[in-house]
């Protein structure tokens, strides 16, 4: 099981139900393959950075789900066929999330250590103001 993120643009001229239908389509495929939807974020209508299919705007939807790699293939195939979908992008994010979590923990560990290190560090800036005077005098 891997975690993926699917961002796609739906034709903004369509009613809300049609957009839900596209989201439902992805949900069906994921559930059928034994995966799980983690979140659905509707960004709503947004101006496109460039025209796609002669449209200036698009309805953005972000779906996060966990599923096997073969599921992605099926989802992408369906989105490609679907005329309501103007553009899609699938990104695998489980490794990134793991890495971010690791980084966050490292930071916390370092922050926990810092209060002890703060005292010697505080002593240094006090000594520092005297130091720049010396190079200046040398020049």
């Amino acid at each position, binding site marked *: 099981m891997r975690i993926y993120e699917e*961002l*796609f*643009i739906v034709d903004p001229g369509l009613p809300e139900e049609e957009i839900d239908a596209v989201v439902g389509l992805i949900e069906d495929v994921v559930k059928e393959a034994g995966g799980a939807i983690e979140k659905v974020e509707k960004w709503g209508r947004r101006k*496109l*950075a*460039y025209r*796609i299919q002669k449209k200036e705007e*698009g309805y*953005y939807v*972000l779906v996060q789900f966990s599923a096997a790699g073969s599921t992605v293939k099926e989802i992408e195939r369906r989105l490609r066929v679907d005329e309501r979908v103007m*553009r*899609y*992008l699938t*990104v695998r994010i489980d490794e*990134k999330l793991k890495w*971010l979590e690791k*980084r*966050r923990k490292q*930071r916390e560990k370092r922050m926990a250590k810092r209060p002890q290190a703060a005292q010697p560090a505080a002593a240094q800036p006090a000594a520092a103001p005297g130091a720049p005077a010396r190079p200046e005098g040398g020049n």
Partner: protein
Amino acid sequence: MAEAKGRPISASQKPTGGDKAVVSRKQYFRRKKVCRFCVERIDDIDYKNTALLTAFISERGKIIPRRISGVCSPHQRRLTTAIKRARHVALLPFVAEV
């Protein structure tokens, strides 16, 4: 003789170039560039974060080289993929009209 004459000319031209470099070095103090992602501790370079990414594209929509922006190479690599992904889903332009 012709060769001997030729050399001093090129040699005489060199010092002027050298002087210019010295002058420019004196006039402009070049500040050391630092990677914004390292300094601000931005771990996540996300393609959805257009506010962050637009800071690293030019007016024309081009990716700013790290020799100019000062971003370190591991971060520039991730930044580039993020910008390219954002372009694909029309969050950022491929070419922006000035």
